[in-house]
């Protein structure tokens, strides 16, 4: 028996000399095996473990299957869609779909522009929400809670409701008529980076309320004694923040950065509102069916064009997947350490 061999091995090499003396009157080996493995408790554990794995693998399959199917569909050529026998594995594999998307939909231009926008937003949002979250967590000033409720409020208001107002605000940008007073002309900030930059700077861009909330919870978990020790040693508030707090919160920063970057990357609300297609070519603009593929006028044209659209989706998320592979453990780590409590 395997288990027997294992136990014997342990017995032989586990302890050295006094072993024989210590276990002289030990219960016989088979008795021990019986009580350990032939009990109801052990049986239940085994059943539970099997059940757990079946469930986890099943749901993991549900999550992964669309991606697998998308990848399979992206290599299929037109003939595969006409052939009924073709299921997941293409008979006539081709790279035409990818080529067409890269050349006709100007993939690399979109990739470059989106990278710039997302990186800019993510870095600014990470730093700003950290500073704001620290302010909310560690300083007791008048209106602290009230302002924090304002943050929650920005989370609750759907940004779609502000669509028209936001567009008009940045199309005819002015702060209390000051700019009109000086320059005489309202600024048109549409098609510039300013709207996103301004919103990010205030911690008011897409889902930033959540980041501020996460950061605040994280900093509330950091013991005050740490900062007090620094203050006693003569370090100022800002020095303490930069030298003590920032290095401490790296996992949380990475978490927020990943969220900000990837949610900005796939965002099609703010980007399509603030940028027109002709000025800055971004990821949402590449989601069309390239003309050269001829995905029209045959039996399964709909399926083919939706497979092409799915290939676009795959190419959009490709950089995110690569990033996720390297950074996924920080997400769990960061959230775990934040110790979110109501």
């Amino acid at each position, binding site marked *: 028996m395997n288990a027997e061999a294992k136990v014997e091995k342990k017995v032989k090499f586990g302890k050295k000399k006094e072993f024989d003396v210590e276990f002289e009157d030990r219960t016989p080996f088979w008795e021990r095996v019986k009580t350990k493995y032939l009990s109801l408790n052990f049986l239940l554990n085994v059943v539970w473990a099997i059940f757990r794995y079946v469930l986890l693998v099943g749901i993991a399959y549900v999550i*992964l299957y669309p991606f697998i*199917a998308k990848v399979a569909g992206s290599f299929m050529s037109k003939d*595969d869609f006409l052939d009924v026998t073709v299921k997941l594995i293409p008979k006539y594999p081709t790279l035409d779909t990818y080529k067409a998307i890269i050349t006709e939909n100007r993939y690399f231009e979109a990739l470059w522009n989106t990278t710039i926008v997302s990186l800019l937003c993510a870095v600014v949002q990470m730093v700003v929400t950290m500073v704001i979250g620290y302010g909310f967590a560690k*300083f007791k*000033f008048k209106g602290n809670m009230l302002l924090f409720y304002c943050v929650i409020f920005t989370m609750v208001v759907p940004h779609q409701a502000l669509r028209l107002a936001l567009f008009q605000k940045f199309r005819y940008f002015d702060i209390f008529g000051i700019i009109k007073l000086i320059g005489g002309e309202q600024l048109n900030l549409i098609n510039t980076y300013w709207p996103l930059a301004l919103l990010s700077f205030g911690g008011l861009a897409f889902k930033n309320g959540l980041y501020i909330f996460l950061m605040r919870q994280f900093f509330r978990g950091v013991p005050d004694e740490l900062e007090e020790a620094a203050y006693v040693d003569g370090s100022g508030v800002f020095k303490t923040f930069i030298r003590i707090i920032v290095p401490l919160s790296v996992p949380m920063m990475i978490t927020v950065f990943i969220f900000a970057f990837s949610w900005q990357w796939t965002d099609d609300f703010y980007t399509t509102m603030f940028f027109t297609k002709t000025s800055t070519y971004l990821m949402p603009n590449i989601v069309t069916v390239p003309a050269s593929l001829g995905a029209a006028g045959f039996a399964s044209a*709909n399926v083919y064009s939706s497979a092409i659209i799915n290939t676009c989706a795959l190419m959009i998320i490709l950089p995110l997947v690569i990033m996720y592979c390297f950074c996924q453990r920080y997400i769990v780590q960061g959230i775990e350490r934040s110790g979110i*409590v*109501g």
Partner: protein
Amino acid sequence: MNSAVKTKKAEPMTKPVKPPKKRKAKSLDKAKARVGYLFVAPFILIFFLIYVPVIVDSLRYSFSTIYPLAGGGFVLDNVGWQNYSDALFVDPRFVSTLTGGIQQLVLEVPAIIVFSLFMAVLLNQKMVGRTLFRAIFFIPVILSTGLIDDIDMNNSFANYAEGAEIGAEETETAGEAVSTGASNAIISAVDLQGLFSTMKIGTGLVTYVVDIVNDVYNLVNRSGVQMLIFLSGLQSISPAIYESCTIDGATTWETFWKITFPMISPMILVNAVYTVIDSFTSSSNAVMNYIGGVYEGVNTQGGDVLATAMYWIYFTLVLVIIAAVAAVMSAYVFYQRRD
């Protein structure tokens, strides 16, 4: 810090009786409070300079008609409650979409919370391959948002239009694990009803469960962040409590209901509120989708202001739901320490 020193020097003249240590702490607090404003300053600045005016504008637009001018700029014309009455009484589909959407929201929130709690408990247990499963389960958090969500949604619409027979093939090729037709449902209500008919469970409940199981892809996709929050909550429960329970002879089932559940109840509240917010602000939501259509509708004159009014109606309703959920649940939430 400089100002702190100044106040410290100034105060002994006015109140010499108090012990010096206390006074020092007080002035330090004051100085810290001032620095606190500095930290929060970016938020205050942009919130009051841009965000509040935008909200005010948005509310104002919902009470007016908007005319763009040829030379740039626009004119607002106050029409009172007309947009709201148009939305509620003139638009043929808005009210039915709204009630349907709210109903769906109310039904989905418990499902998402129960599912994500269950999965978080599973993913928190020690087993082989835990890291891998965690990595897979949090993929939707990163990838199934915004644009990708929209693309997937359009696929399922295509599925729906295609009908059942091509639908089956499309599921294979176009990457939609979710079934919309009856042909590829995971389980069907009829089977389950046969199973449960002896147990005297109502058909309503059975169809509810069946719908959830068949929509498991959607469920998994939308419970990523909730799982993360629950997982963090589970991690914060001290293992010593579980240990003492086991020594006293509590079973796993008892431990879950007497220890894990109360300890994690604040997270349930947070998640309930988050789920409501998340699902009603996402653009894949039926109501949001409809209003978005109204916003972009070219044929309707003033669709944008009408849509803004609709958003505010919807927002008010959801706010009421959130308040109700928070009020009911906070009565049952257990806080380990109150501060």
